[in-house]
């Protein structure tokens, strides 16, 4: 019998919703990790993964709504989630602070996601086990 010690994970998602399976695999992993008593200290969205934080994604009603499913999971378990600022700004994912700074017409980050720098990811690497979910393409 393998001896499983409780872990602290950081989940990094780099695959976009609706062009990769990464958001679903990552969510099922995260649910199973929490159910087994492990801690997820944060979720970090990088590259195309930042689209999960969009408040404006409207999939057809018979498809899963990955941004909503992710925000509900994060809120339920009070897990902080950040989208990398450089990845997010390049792809049009904007919070109110960046909207003011760049004088943009709108902001579109879905709560509880926030925008932060790669420093969050670097810090995660020093204190938790990082698991990455990439695009399969």
């Amino acid at each position, binding site marked *: 019998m393998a001896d499983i010690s409780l872990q602290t994970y950081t989940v990094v998602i*780099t695959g976009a919703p609706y062009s990769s399976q990464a958001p679903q695999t990552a969510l099922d992993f995260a649910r199973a990790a929490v159910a087994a008593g492990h801690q997820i200290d944060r979720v970090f969205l*990088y*590259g195309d993964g930042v689209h999960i934080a969009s408040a404006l994604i409207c999939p057809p009603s018979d498809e899963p709504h990955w941004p909503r499913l992710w925000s509900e999971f994060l809120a339920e378990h009070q897990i902080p989630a950040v989208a990398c600022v*450089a990845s997010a700004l390049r792809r049009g994912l904007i919070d109110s602070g960046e909207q003011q700074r760049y004088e943009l017409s709108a902001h579109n980050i879905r709560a509880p996601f926030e925008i932060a720098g790669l420093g969050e990811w*670097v810090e995660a*690497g020093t204190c938790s086990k990082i698991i990455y979910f*990439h695009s399969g393409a």
Partner: protein
Amino acid sequence: MTTLIVIDQAPYGSWSGREGLDMAFSLAAFDQSCALLFNGAGVNWLRTGQQPDGLGQKSVAQNLGAAAIFGVEALYADAQACQRYGLANDAIIAGVTLIAPDQTFMTGFEKVTFAG
């Protein structure tokens, strides 16, 4: 305790290599030990004489030139991939170590990470 960031996408046709470089520079900026591996088509980052002004992009080789200054500890390239893409030693930018990215090489790194 070194993190190896792997870039296996050719430059200009995809952004994931640039986002890999950002990861390496961030680690270095926070004094975390890191190195870069150019694998597969990623070795094309290392070719001298890139002139991407016609694409509206900056030369990735120029970005890489800053790697040592930022504190990235090493630039590795898959020797076989260099051969496949016609990258002779004199066509590769300075400071690159040619290796075989096998089990022995990878074991030396605490973490091995792709940007996407």
